[in-house]
């Protein structure tokens, strides 16, 4: 997971957005309760808070070379509102 994914922000997130995401994550994983997660969050924030480091991380990123399944690895299995028709098709079956 890269720093952006750890904090759950987009690659073009502003400094304020990064800070807000960091504070929110720290609330979720306080150091006294989740020291390991907190460490990762802190590292991610350190990497992204400095615009120069942030830019360099973005420029040298090789995430696109990872196996393509990584595109959906981080994608939550969110349920899709598919409309009533597909549901009705199942209801018709017996």
């Amino acid at each position: 997971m890269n720093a952006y994914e750890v904090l759950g922000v987009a690659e073009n997130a502003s400094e304020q957005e990064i800070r807000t995401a960091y504070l929110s994550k720290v609330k979720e994983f306080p150091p006294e309760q989740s020291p390991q997660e907190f460490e990762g969050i802190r590292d991610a924030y350190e990497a992204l808070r400095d615009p120069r480091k942030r830019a360099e991380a973005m420029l040298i990123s090789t995430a696109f070379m990872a196996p393509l399944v990584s595109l959906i690895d981080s994608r939550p299995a969110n349920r899709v509102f598919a409309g009533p028709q597909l549901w009705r098709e199942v209801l018709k079956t017996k």
Partner: protein
Amino acid sequence: MGTNIQSFMAIMKVPPRRSIASIGVAQNNFKANASTLAVSGSNAGNAVALETSIRQLLVNGNSKAALENAKQLHKSEHTSASESLLLEAYRARIQSLLDQNLALEAKSLIRLVAERFPNAQALLNDVGQVASARSGDLAALLKPLNDPELSAERRADLERIIQTQVSDLRALAECAALPPEHSLRQAAAALDRAFDAATSGPVNEEQIALPEVSHRSPLAPWKLLIRAIACLHRGEDQQCRDYLASIKPESVPARLVPSMQAILGADTKADSLKSPERVLISRVGGNLSDLRSALEQVDRAFSGEDDNQIFKAVHAAVRECQRSAPDRLGTLKQIIHVRGGSTGLDAKRLATSLDGEPRRDAAYFRMFSRALEIFGDDEPYDLAEACELWDEFRQHALREGIFTAQSAEMAQLYLHMTDTLRQIPAKLLKEMQQGGGFGRKQPQGDERYYLYPEKLFARACVIDPHPEAFSQWLSWANDQSVAMGESVAKEWHRIRPADIEPLLHLMKQSEKRNAFPSALAYLEKAERIDAIDSTVRAARLRLLAAAAIRHLQQKKPRLAMEKITEMAELPQSQQADRPGFLAALRTLTCAAAKDQEGMERSMHEAEALLGGLPAALLLFGIAAAAKCLDLASVPDAKALKPEGRKTIPASLARVMAIAKDFKIGKFSLPGSYIDEAEKQFPQVADALTLEQISALGEIGIATDHPKLAWATSTAGLKRAGPTEAFFLLLRARALPQYFNDRRRALASAAAELARFQRDTEVVDQAVEMLRDPFGGDSFSLTLEQAREIARKEAASPSFPGIFDSGPDYSELFSDTLCECADCRRARGEEPSMFNDEDRSEEGIFEDGLEMNETEMRRIFNRSVPKEIPPDMAEMLFKVMKEAFQSGEAPEKLLSQILGGRGGTKQKKGRRGK
């Protein structure tokens, strides 16, 4: 199936519903029976048998064959019993059609039976209602509900049919057979709206409260289903499971339970699900397994050689992504296009496979530029093209608001582009700058800025004048030329006048060309910024000393004396041996000015401060640096008394430390004293400090006295402690080059220990040594291995020779195979560079020593360049062997044979005398 129908079946003796598989078997039975019927149909006695056969077919669930036979029987018998059996067969056939979800066909058959057998109308009522319910024609089913006289039992039966058979809520809500205000229509309408809402988007509690549907309503299970769907989408999985568990299993909504449980993660066998259920699970549940395997297929295809496979896999993956993860489609197409582009796939075919070109945005150009940087590291034109694409990225990033034109991110982009350009050979870059673009456009004017590091640096530093950016610019400029370096340092100083680095650079450059007034002027500026900076503090004394020596060289003792006076006023000049240095410098200056009295006074002072011999050696060294050796002389070391000779190592070490402190260039020491130090060192080593030992080691290396350096390294290693890494490195430097494996082991151990001791200077030097083109491949050691090497070396004091190559570290070079004939033969390989014809010469040599030729070959093989042809190498080996037999030292011999590679490397200006 409702209780009503079951009881009806029991009355009619209709066999229970059978599975499809059972029907298949029954059909086979029917074929046999039909054949029997054809033979014996006209026989009255056989009518009983046929009736029995029909009943058996009904029991077996083969309603179709039973009906055909019943029709034949009734046609031939035409009795009330045969009609009853025929109706029974019709009833079973209708039920079978309903079971197969063929409600319309069932209804047609009911209509036909009712026409032909009006008396059977009542008999077919229930199946007729079920058929109507299933086909969406609910009027017949619901009409009886308007009858106020309808018995409770009959109402309950109808409600059960509604609950278990009606799947079309809208049809129920709009059914004209009931008045619009009828509670069933109202409930169905509310449920239909809520169902549409819950399956199409997030819903609130109010939307799914459904007060119109009471818990006693036949439609109550729908209410539970809708709430379950809402919970499913909210991620309230446990609540969803609870609702699903409450749904009556025979009700219509229960048909969705298996699918929803699968979405919730229940272990469901795929083949137990019907096609609509699988589609629903995949679409609603976000099941990405198909996409996952499609993407894996693309990765596999890209690692293969078959372009067609790639296009096919890409096409399938894009389609699947479109279906199951459309939010990822844009990025997927971009990545595949970039990969395809950087691996030279046919662009048109790729675009077709991708179902169109990818989006050309900042992300796309970033990936493409980066891919060219990675895959084009040995292709300069790709690197230049990467910079052109970075410019495209810049323009899109600005448009997309990823960063602004004057941001630190933009400056970082420019610096990144310079990094890429720096990988292109300077000459080629120059040609590129003078040539055109890279196929896509012919830029004009400053448009091609991305090919000019100086323009990129300038842009970066103007946007974000950060010290790190200037530092990178200065480093690059200094590599181009001294003048360019100074120009950048001046620009840095102009933009960031409070930074000390550009001033120190300008000072050092001035110092290098002996422009001491300029150097001192820059130093003064630096002192005003940060007078306590260690470099600044050390610089003034060093610059004044260098200036004084320069004046001495120019025969300007008066100016030299001015500098000495200035130095004397500095508080730091009173520390350690610095007063002694000042006294020695003053002695020479007085001698140059022919001030005899001053010279003698200063000389006495120097001797008093440093001791007689160190003062004399220091005078010699300074005079050598100032090119006025006529003013200072020392007697030959051999002329000293034995007691005096014993002090030589300590004296040299002290003088060397002073020269190092003042960074005196071209400082030399008399050769006879170093030779003598080499002899005396073993006797006095125990009395010397580690600093003195290391200073002597450096003298040994600098003056090409490897045995002195070797001896000091042994002494240093014996004392262990934090200087182990330094002494291991010193030992590696002292070792003749042809002991390549041992050199590599020592340098690697030094690097590892230095890393542990955080001695970055030694780490850098060791790494640099391992990078030496003649130093072999680098390899890493564990800390324990490094310590073991240090222990072994401390226990091996003798300088290595052809008969004593020291500890064997071959086990550390597991990847390096011995090339000697014996080892090659043991591995089943042909003797390569050397054949074994000369093995007859192995044995006693003229000097009476038994020489191990294999060992000699091993050393030679390791030292000889691989590119030398085997016959030439064999000839060289013979020359070496003959020379050895004639009594030449093997080290010199190898050095002579292998030239610069085999002998001790000497660096310009490092020789002490």
